[in-house]
């Protein structure tokens, strides 16, 4: 990465060309297909069969990368190699079919490490902002454990470890926030193929091996990875960074000045909009976790089937929204967004077991400043309306057609000038949806009141706390049948990484709640236990 001599041109030319090394951290989630297999007596035809969901290993990953880029006008090409440690694990259970006795089956799968060698091709949408795609060769290792418990006393455990090769492809965005440093956010799909058919011997209750065997096929080593990272670029092909005349690298002032409040409160929104004409890319990751686990009474006739689904009550939904935001006038801003979602549901009351990645929906947001906070008014008031089209249910992950309008009346104020800010949102969200193959449209509405307090520790860093109260109603658009209510609370963080880039993070846990007809102290039927939100905003 180099910057041409600043004295020759008032706005220096910036290039991505050069070597770089860096580190990354992120998460991965499996995209497996079903597992299947059979059991045999010695030298006889199979006497038991099974098919159950894949273990879909998920978890954290991190590693190092190195590469070289070449820039031609606004086009950028390059190569990159990376090496990752991974803690992707997953479990799955099932019940087989047999002429003798129903066998229980369980598998635990892990991907422990992987690496890729990929080509990169990108386009610099702004001198320091690169959008790119990449693809190439992948390799990695992991294994699985397969347990068999036959109803007739036979049991066995098999292990299989392997190093595999495959391919990887993805896309991302990279931002040079300092002369030699860039930050990236990228998605990568890695497919290391299927683990081959694997059979192992079973033992009976006396410890003898009567010649029976069990086999498992279909364990798929493929996953989606989302990674954030930083790169250091060696300034090998050009003169040194041009110093003070390279204007767009200057750090923001170290004094406390005005701050834009839109994203400083976490789940609650502030009333400010950007400057007229400003364009911003928002990357918003949301994680929802925890639902009421499946209840299995001993005398439940479906106990066996429910047990086979697992009893962990494992619910996780991760969504990724990419939004383009444009401030059209000094009072009006709009944003267009597309959101994808990954669900992993095991043994949750009222929801089917599911592992799925899908388009969640499309949205268009409009914000109008009714009263601008500042010299003319101590409070800011903004009306926000966001119509959305939904493709899958954000709760169940099943395909549906949904239309909803999230409306917010946003009020914020400066409690201590340039330091302490407070905001309140009133939320109204009517929705109509119809599940795939269903005739009837369901009408629902959610009402909410949320609040946040944020204090700036430094000009660039603000910490705060927020509360959110929501009520879920069914059978209509307006305060109809109350299904449940929940109160969430948690911390928030806002940090400016550069004049044109910020990160906002928030976490909230349900602290009180009540679902209609239930006696629990939380509503885990209509709401989740935990929710997290991570946002990168990049102005260009």
């Amino acid at each position, binding site marked *: 990465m180099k910057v041409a001599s600043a004295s020759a041109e*008032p706005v220096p030319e910036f290039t991505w060309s050069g070597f770089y090394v860096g580190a990354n951290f992120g998460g991965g989630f499996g995209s497996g297909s079903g597992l299947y297999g059979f059991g045999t007596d010695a030298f006889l035809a199979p006497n038991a069969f099974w098919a159950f969901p894949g273990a879909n290993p998920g978890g954290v990953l991190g590693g190092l990368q190195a590469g070289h880029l070449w820039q031609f006008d606004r086009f950028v090409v390059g190569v990159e190699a990376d090496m990752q440690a991974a803690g992707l694990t997953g479990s799955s259970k099932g019940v087989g079919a047999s002429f003798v006795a129903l066998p229980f089956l369980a598998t635990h799968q892990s991907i422990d490490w992987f690496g890729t060698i990929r080509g990169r091709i990108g386009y610099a949408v702004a001198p320091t902002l690169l959008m790119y795609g990449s693809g190439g060769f992948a390799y990695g290792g992991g294994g699985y454990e397969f347990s068999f418990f036959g109803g007739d006393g036979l049991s066995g455990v098999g292990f299989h470890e392997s190093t595999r090769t495959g391919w990887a492809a993805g896309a991302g965005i990279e931002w040079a926030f300092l002369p030699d440093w860039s930050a990236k956010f990228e998605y990568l799909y890695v497919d290391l193929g299927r683990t081959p058919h694997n059979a192992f011997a079973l033992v009976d209750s006396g410890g003898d091996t009567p010649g029976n065997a069990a086999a498992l096929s279909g364990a798929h080593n493929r996953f989606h990875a989302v990674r954030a990272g930083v790169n250091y670029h060696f300034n090998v092909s050009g003169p040194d960074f041009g110093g003070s005349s390279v204007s767009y690298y200057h750090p923001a002032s170290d004094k406390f000045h*005005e701050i834009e409040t839109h994203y400083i409160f976490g789940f609650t929104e502030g009333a*400010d909009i950007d400057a007229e004409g400003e364009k911003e890319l928002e990357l918003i990751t949301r994680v929802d976790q925890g639902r009421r686990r499946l209840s299995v009474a001993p005398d439940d006739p479906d106990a066996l089937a429910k047990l086979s689904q697992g009893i962990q009550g494992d619910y996780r939904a991760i969504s990724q929204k990419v939004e383009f935001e444009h401030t059209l006038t000094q009072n009006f801003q709009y944003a267009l967004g597309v959101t994808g979602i990954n669900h992993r549901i095991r043994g949750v009351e009222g929801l089917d077991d599911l592992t799925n990645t899908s388009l969640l929906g499309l949205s268009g947001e409009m914000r109008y400043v009714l009263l601008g906070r500042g010299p*003319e*008014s101590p409070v800011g008031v903004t009306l926000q309306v966001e119509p959305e089209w939904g493709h899958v249910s954000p709760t169940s992950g099943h395909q549906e057609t949904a239309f909803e309008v999230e409306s917010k009346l946003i009020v914020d104020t400066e409690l201590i000038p340039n330091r302490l800010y407070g905001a309140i949102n009133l939320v109204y969200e009517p929705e109509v949806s119809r599940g795939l193959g269903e005739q009837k449209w369901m009408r629902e509405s959610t009402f909410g009141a949320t609040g946040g307090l944020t204090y700036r520790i430094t000009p660039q860093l603000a910490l705060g706390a927020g509360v959110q109260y929501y009520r879920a109603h069914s059978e209509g658009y307006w305060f109809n049948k109350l299904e449940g209510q929940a109160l969430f609370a948690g911390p928030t963080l806002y940090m400016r990484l550069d004049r044109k880039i910020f990160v906002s993070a928030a976490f909230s846990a349900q602290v009180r709640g009540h679902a209609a007809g239930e006696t629990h102290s939380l509503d885990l039927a209509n709401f989740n236990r935990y929710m997290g939100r991570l946002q990168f905003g990049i102005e260009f």
Partner: protein
Amino acid sequence: MKAMQRVCLGVLLAPGVWFGFQASAFAQEATVNLSIKDHRFQPSEVRAPANTPITILVRNLDPTPEEFESKTLRVEKIIAGGGSTTLRIRPLGAGRYRFFGDYHEDTAEGYLVIE
């Protein structure tokens, strides 16, 4: 009943009065001139009337680029070294609105005072 008629008359006349006010407000427009020299605004404080659209003309006398920005005016615009630009500001209420040069925020700072 008479009170009701007065209310109805008021409701009917109100838009006319409002539009009349808007028309008179938009009939006049204030212009403010600023220049940037040595990464400072000259003058550093300018005045304009309330509820009137404002045009700000900024000339950058420095050889380096500058970005004119204001959070409360909700504008930002890059001005090349030796160049100039025009910004149109919506009618504002009374108050002291800060603006700054985003590349040299600690020195390039000024106020638009609306009276």
